[in-house]
């Protein structure tokens, strides 16, 4: 399909037609391509990204935004979408402009794909996936696995009536393996995943050693104990620390929740919320991060935003509107899931910065507790300040010693209590950034990274 830049003339013409009828309008066009393979013991599936592309038009209708979108990028279809805004814009000229300053940035960026697997052939992906499958099923008791790898190239072109024009190409690579162990009618699994922007690290990360270790973990879980139930010391592994960062101070600092007065965090901005060892960051410019972007969908460059600085809550994530309302600056966090979805303030790569402890030192601190490993999901409660984290597996800690694996579990707790009880964060050498997808409300999924090292605190856990 044609590069989106070839359609700029149509987008510019649409903006010109809208200009007399609104104080501000913008268009985001989006397209993507890609390929992936997934194999199991009895099946092989090769797929390509759907040939879907389109554009969304957002225009200020005097007192609120109006939007229309289309999955066709020809002039007639854009004209039809623009016409659909006619009624909403009929009163726009009489009102004021939208809150905040529009972007005027003009730039083009593509990720550094040097050494990446862009253009990875179908044969190479199949061969790699078969290697992963072979490594996993070589472990006794592991009869099957899902192994896969894929890449996408996503184009986004943003233009507005203030003159901004931002084009970006994002090349993402992801791969993983889920080994299945089955015994006496009981089944277990574990997972290992890697995803990044414009990097070939996948193929180093998904090593035979790591895949074998994951397959052994799946088998080990068949005979693992149930996790303990109740309030106790918890050590979060890097993937779970990352999910904690995302759910605790990530969603709660999306400033649209501040504006709606729907964040328990807003009243405590500037206060100390945790120990000096705790620093939380959102960074859309994180090198090769799965959630990294060059520009957000209001045409602002991505950046590093410190949310908690050595225990003090110092920052929030903004789009133009929340920044204007709260006398802050936009942080490059205005994101749409795709051209069909609305714009929200969203995270990019959110992580806990490393501390000084070692994992062994954290475990020694614990009399009765559990290590939570391999995060599978999390949810936030921006109003009430609760959070839930779920993990695939864990390890029991008794009297400062690891005493065996435990099965999947959930953690529940009040974020501020959890922060105040953080006793240690482990070193940079443990740091991992995990790929994932985040929704806002029901849907609007988009890629985000979550990172951290090991972290010790206290919370309620139970089987899940």
């Amino acid at each position, binding site marked *: 399909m044609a590069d989106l830049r070839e359609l700029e003339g149509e987008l510019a013409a649409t903006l010109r037609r809208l200009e007399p009828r609104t104080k501000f309008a913008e268009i985001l066009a989006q397209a993507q391509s890609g390929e992936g393979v997934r194999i199991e013991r009895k099946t092989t599936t090769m797929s390509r990204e759907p*040939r*879907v*592309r*389109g554009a969304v038009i957002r225009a200020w209708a005097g007192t609120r935004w109006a939007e229309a979108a289309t999955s*066709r990028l020809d002039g007639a279809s854009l004209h039809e979408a623009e016409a659909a805004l006619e009624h*909403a814009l009929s009163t726009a000229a009489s009102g004021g402009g939208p809150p905040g300053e529009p972007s005027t940035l003009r730039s083009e960026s593509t990720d550094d794909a040097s050494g990446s697997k862009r253009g990875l052939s179908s044969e190479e992906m199949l061969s790699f996936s078969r290697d992963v499958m072979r490594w996993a099923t070589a472990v006794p008791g592991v*009869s099957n696995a899902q192994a896969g790898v894929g890449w996408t190239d996503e184009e986004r072109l943003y233009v507005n009536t203030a003159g901004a024009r931002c084009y970006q190409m994002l090349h993402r690579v992801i791969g993983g393996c889920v080994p299945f162990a089955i015994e006496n009618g009981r089944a277990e699994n574990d997972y290992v995943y890697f995803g990044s922007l414009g990097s070939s690290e996948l193929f180093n990360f998904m090593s035979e050693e790591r895949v074998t270790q994951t397959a052994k973990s799946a088998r080990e879980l068949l005979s693992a104990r149930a996790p303990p*139930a109740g309030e106790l010391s918890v050590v979060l592994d890097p993937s779970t620390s990352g999910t904690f960062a995302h759910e605790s101070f990530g969603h709660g600092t999306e400033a649209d929740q501040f504006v709606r007065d729907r964040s328990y965090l807003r009243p405590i901005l500037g206060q100390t919320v945790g120990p000096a060892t705790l620093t939380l960051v959102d960074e859309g410019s994180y090198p090769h991060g799965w959630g990294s972007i060059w520009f957000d969908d209001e045409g602002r460059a991505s950046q590093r935003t410190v949310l908690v600085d050595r225990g003090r809550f110092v920052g929030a994530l903004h789009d133009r509107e929340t920044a204007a309302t709260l006398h802050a600056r936009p942080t490059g966090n205005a994101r749409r899931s795709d051209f069909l979805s609305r714009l929200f303030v969203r995270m990019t790569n959110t992580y806990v910065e490393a501390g000084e402890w070692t994992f062994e030192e954290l475990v020694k601190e614990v009399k009765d507790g559990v290590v939570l490993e391999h995060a599978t999901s999390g949810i936030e409660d921006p109003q009430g300040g609760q959070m839930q984290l779920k993990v695939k597996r864990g390890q029991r800690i008794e009297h400062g010693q690891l005493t065996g694996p435990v099965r999947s579990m959930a953690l529940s707790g009040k974020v501020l209590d959890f922060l105040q009880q953080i006793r240690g964060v482990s070193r940079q050498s443990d740091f991992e950034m995990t790929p994932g997808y985040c929704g806002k*409300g029901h849907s609007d999924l988009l890629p985000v990274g979550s990172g951290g090292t090991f972290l010790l605190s206290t919370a309620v856990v139970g089987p*899940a």
Partner: protein
Amino acid sequence: MSETNGTASTAFRAAERLKLAEPWEVYGERSSRYEIHLNGREIELVRGPILVEGYGVRVFRPRDGGTGTGFQASTDFSEEGIRATAEDAEALTQYSSFPAKKIELPNGSTASAPSPEIRDPRLWDRPLETLQEYVDGLLRSFDGVPDAQPSFGSVRATLSETTLTNSAGLRANYPHTNVIFELAVKSTAGPEGRPPGEYWVNEIMRRLESHDLPDRVADWCRLARDARRAEPTPTGDLPVVLPASVLSGILPLGIGDRVTGAARLRDLAPQIGTVWGTDAVTLRDDGRVPWGISSSPVDDEGSPQRERTILDHGRVTGLLYDARHAGAFDTGSTGNAVRGGHFSFTEWRRFESAPGSATTTLVLAPGDGGSDAELIEAAGDGIWLQQLGWAIPDPVTGAFGGEIRIGYRIRGGKLAEPVRGGTLGGVVVAPEGQPSLLGSAVGFGSTAVLSEKLLSPTLLVRPLTVAGQG
């Protein structure tokens, strides 16, 4: 529906210009979406129409003693676009393999398959006005409520026409509507010093009904107030009462991931005759339930919807197949081809996915446990679970659980104080004699309620593991 007026022909138009060897299939979808987003009581954004028209092409080719399947989707209806889409699908068969020697695609037309009620006629004819009226009614229902108001929400309606055709002569076409409604209700009533309470409403449905909004809003406000004054959850193995609205986040995936042809291919499906529940558990799958979000006249390959028994008095009696997985086991499709990815329900853009085998609406037979109040009385000392956070089961182990967003302590057979926080979990099914959600269900309410992909009575399960600070 002005943007999709006339007879939908998306799949037919694309298929006419395809130059493919048999067997092939084209699934088309033309959708318009309209949305209203709220910031408190204010409308902050009106969206629509959001127009998407696309098609997915699937082809099957003999390969290595089985079948190579190729699938590609597109919104490009130009000659070049259709040709490229077909070439993609054809090329992908070279790299794909599936252990089915023959795949029987359905034929016929929807004329012979009566459609369940899945289209809201008012929404179809006047989408934006109907949304606006719903939002007006919603906000009016909050008038005069001093201590609870909406803080954030949206209503998103999708109007779609689905078309299917294939090389076996199938021509199917049906219209349907979907609505996603989300609302955060915030309460500042109750004890000083606590954060505001919130109740999060999240519903997926086929139609918009506003006549009962005043009663529903009153309920949501009560739950938001109770979230604020809730006490910590106790710890222990306790009797738990779960209504259909909670079970719908657990059973469809917990059961659905295990009773399909896909699970059988992974050696994860149960043998026919396996005991998965008590004698009181009879579970069916039915793609014709009126207003079910997964209901339709035909499945996503064009096979007529029907009722299939999965568990009869606790024993597994049948598995669910689409045409491809049926071909792998020399059996017939049960009409369970579903597009839309892992969660097996996507309200639109289904044309972007090839079908897999999945449940439609699970129907759990009611029992003789009576009303919710009678089940609560039977629980004696336990928990009524109102809302559980992201309890979604592991597709392999069936382990489910999450944080208790809001529940109530049951004391002496009566609802007592609200509880919040802590976790509740278990496994959906387990080998006979081991505790599980279905195996430990001791009370089945007498009335079934439709909640998303589940039509179920309230269940009393004795026990489930609850972990909290109390």
